[in-house]
């Protein structure tokens, strides 16, 4: 299996290219605008471009974490953008209609209701995918299309603005660092702990490789798939709270528009295969940071913000192509294995990380 030397293990983890991309982006920024790396403390808050990137990237990170687990089970969740809109819409309309629209009680109750509703939406997605057995991409397309309509229904087509200090903390508050990034990092730590320190991560990956075989092996494949969709929806709900609380308003039309695409990109850039069976949470976080840094870079370089999309496209294609030979090598080996013993050429041709899903699993099982 892989060597135990730290550098090799790092290369094998597939985090090399995303990290290089992020560092190149940051370096390019620092060269063009030396003040980019500057951090200053004002009123007990940390300010600077780097902090901005973290703060604006928090919703994408959070959604990407949920998406990462869904993709690991060979699924996809297109509805997260709509869930973002619904979550903000529910909270803002609850707070606006509450007896005391500025109190913390209204904010917490509103957020609680919103997250509960998001969990129900996740249950719905999971039901369609895991129980009815519809392809994930279509099952979640239903909610993606209808969800924004539902959000508009809740807000009655209006942009609802609220003035609630407690609610504002979620997206715009500071505890030295922005509260939103603290939430995202906390969720990341929690997910990493729960999936990587227990067998859950391994089970999720095995469901992604072959749901039927996993079920026959005694895993509750259905429950696992169901759970990841609920988790993704709750993550999207929290991200929706951040986005709407940052501007103290719920915009059913534009909140979280295309954020599902950003989240999927973040996951893919981070080295998680859309074919399922293998995922990297750290890579996903790096991917989300790359996307946000790219956006911030374009803003700060004075290029029209709309053109960000061109850069995004270039980065996606570049990262995917860098990862593609690996996919080819894996595929070659699999097809050849049926006829001949493993070909050393295919081994050598592999990129730094040539884990087939099975080898990744064997390795994990081998680790205590």
């Amino acid at each position: 299996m892989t060597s135990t030397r730290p550098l090799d293990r790092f290369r094998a983890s597939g985090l090399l290219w995303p990290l290089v991309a992020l560092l190149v982006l940051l370096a390019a920024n620092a060269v063009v605008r030396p003040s980019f790396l500057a951090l200053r403390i004002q009123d007990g808050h940390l300010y600077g471009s780097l902090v901005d990137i973290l703060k604006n990237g928090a919703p994408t990170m959070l959604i990407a974490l949920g998406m990462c687990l869904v993709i690991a089970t060979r699924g996809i969740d297109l509805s997260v953008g709509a869930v973002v809109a619904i979550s903000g819409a529910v909270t803002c309309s609850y707070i606006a209609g509450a007896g005391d629209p500025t109190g913390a009680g209204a904010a917490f109750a509103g957020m609680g209701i919103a997250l509960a509703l998001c969990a129900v939406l996740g249950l719905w997605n999971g039901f369609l995918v895991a129980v009815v057995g519809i392809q994930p991409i279509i099952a979640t397309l239903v909610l993606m299309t209808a969800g924004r309509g539902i959000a508009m229904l809740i807000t009655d087509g209006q942009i609802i603005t609220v003035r609630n200090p407690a609610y504002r903390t979620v997206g715009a508050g500071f505890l030295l660092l922005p509260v939103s990034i603290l939430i995202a990092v906390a969720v990341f730590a929690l997910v990493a702990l729960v999936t990587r320190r227990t067998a859950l991560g391994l089970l999720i990956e095995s469901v992604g490789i072959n749901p039927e075989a996993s079920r026959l092996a005694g895993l509750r494949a259905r429950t696992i798939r169901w759970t990841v969709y609920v988790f993704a929806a709750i993550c999207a709900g929290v991200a929706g709270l951040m986005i709407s609380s940052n501007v103290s308003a719920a915009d059913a039309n534009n909140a979280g528009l295309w954020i599902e695409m950003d989240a999927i990109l973040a996951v893919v850039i981070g080295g998680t295969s859309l074919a399922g069976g293998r995922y990297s949470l750290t890579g996903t976080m790096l991917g989300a940071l790359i996307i946000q840094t790219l956006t911030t870079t374009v803003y700060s370089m004075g290029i029209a913000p709309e053109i960000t999309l061109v850069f995004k496209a270039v980065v996606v294609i570049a990262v995917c192509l860098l990862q593609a030979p690996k996919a080819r090598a894996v595929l070659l080996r699999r097809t050849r294995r049926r006829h001949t013993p493993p070909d050393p050429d295919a081994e050598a041709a592999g990129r730094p990380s040539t884990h087939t899903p099975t080898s990744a699993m064997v390795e994990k099982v081998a680790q205590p």
Partner: protein
Amino acid sequence: MTTSATPVKGKSPLALPGRRSVPGRVVPVIATFVLFVLLFGVGTARYDGFLSGQVVANLFIDNAFLIVLAVGMTFVIVTGGIDLSVGAVVALSTMVAAAGLQAGLPAPLVVLLVLAMGSTLGLLMGLVIHYFEIQPFIVTLAGMFLARGLCFVVGVESISIKDPTFRTFATAAIPLSGTVSITWSVVIALAIVAVAVWVLHRTRFGRTAYAVGGNENSAMLMGLPVARVKVGVYVISGLCSAIAGLLFSLYMLSGYGLHAVGMELDAIAAVVIGGTLLSGGAGYVLGSLLGVLVLGVIQTLISFQGTLSSWWTKIAIGTLLLLFIVMQRVFMRRQP
């Protein structure tokens, strides 16, 4: 029913006596047609003036570009792929057309330019998908970002089209009977549907597309030109998007980078409602046409109602999608 609705009714069973006589495959298309008739019946029963030739003609006029998009998407989805870039390519086409005309290029040259651009984008995406084995979802997502971004490279503001050729072509009405008239866009869209029906259901290319969608490895082992077809469907989709973009610029008489946002979802929804399986290997072009018409009728119903807000359209489309997907599960019993 009226003149324009009859051919649809007549054509629908035309695809049936072909090679595939498995009833299960045709049921979704028939269900879509029944749904269309039912929705139209509801409209006729509830609103005065709903049952008129012009309402049907308007269905085609207002959705000509979507029909073309859905046709291109059908090819891609039949091979088991997906093309998320179509909406963005429509926007890019309107933008290039408007900017080209503004710069004083002759209209035919602009049209050729747009068509070449759409096909090239499709070709590039198809090549990357096939030869680098990256999921169509991600590649066409990148294509979508690229095309949208390029729109804004051409120009951030909306550009109106003042070219007399384009304007005459856009506003010219073809009278079908005393009170009913259609536009040239409808004629183009229906011509494309006819060509697509022939290509997908009557040529070797189309048969290979079904084979690739059914099982790519088997298709390859049978010696079918998998590479050519897999890349070809994305070229077709790109070309259709460019044509749809031209029709859309005729409809809006402007080019703008924010045109057709989310139209790829409408196209996919129409194809799914039309009975095409997203896992590939089954589907009919005419089903997609019916899918578009169903979406169109829903919009017309909501605008006739007047009191319902436009977001009900989205909820209705989502519900329909769900209905059809569940129905597909029941009839097909195929694993995802």
